[in-house]
């Protein structure tokens, strides 16, 4: 799972690939449609799509005669999970800092309260 996350972050480190993901969030698109707004070849877009595919971010579908690219939203859930957990831990730490700052005078000295904190 961590390996996939690395691939996801690596894939999204590139601005063109982030644009492609943003475009696909609106709906599926063909490689040609994805390449249209850029001043680069369809081949170059295909290369970017390979990286996104490798990270599990997109899949190719063959609906009717139209081969289109589809965004796999689940992978973003994985990334969000990691960031949320990290956020929780940071926030816990900052709540303790809030409590400490409440006991601090303007000079930054801590006025001890009833709770004994030092060992």
């Amino acid at each position, binding site marked *: 799972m*961590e390996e996939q996350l690395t691939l996801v972050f690596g894939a999204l480190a590139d601005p063109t690939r982030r644009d492609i993901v943003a475009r696909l969030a609106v709906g599926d698109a063909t490689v040609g449609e994805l390449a249209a707004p850029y001043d680069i070849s369809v081949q170059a877009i295909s290369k970017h799509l390979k990286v996104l595919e490798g990270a599990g971010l997109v899949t190719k579908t063959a609906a009717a005669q139209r081969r289109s690219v589809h965004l796999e939203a689940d992978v973003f859930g994985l990334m969000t999970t990691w960031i949320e957990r990290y956020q929780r*831990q940071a926030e816990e730490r900052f709540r*303790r800092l809030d409590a*400490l*700052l409440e006991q*601090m005078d303007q000079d930054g000295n*801590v006025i001890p309260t009833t709770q004994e904190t030092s060992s």
Partner: protein
Amino acid sequence: MSEPARIEADPTVPAIHIYRDFRATPAQLVRAHTDPELVPLWMGPARRTMEVDYWDARSGGSWRYVDRTDGVELGFHGCFHEISDSRIVQTFTFEGMPEAVALETMVFQDLGDGMTRLHAWSLVDSFEGRDAWLASGMETGVNEGYAALDALLAAGRV
């Protein structure tokens, strides 16, 4: 109440950004981040003991602390590159991965009305390293099954 901390994984460089507002002055926040008596009161993970080994909080100084949990000791050390009224720049190494060093910058922006915004970011040397750090919960990597570290610990190499 302050808004909860906001976390962003930087898309362009291997860094993690944290933003958080505090009801305090920049000077009070700098004090809370640099006073060796105060730092262990809040910075260490909950339910753990953070013991300062050495702590020379000045530009060019160095620091080290040991995190003790259930008989397991994890060391962390680094240098204070710069400490000013509104900014702290320091390095950070977890001794379980001694070759990895993060560059940490904390900027304290006075918002007025007794509020200060902390923007802290950690820059590491690769996206892989950043993501492993993010995935591990950053604290120490052991929280929830950081397998490589567990193996090192089991082998008695940390």
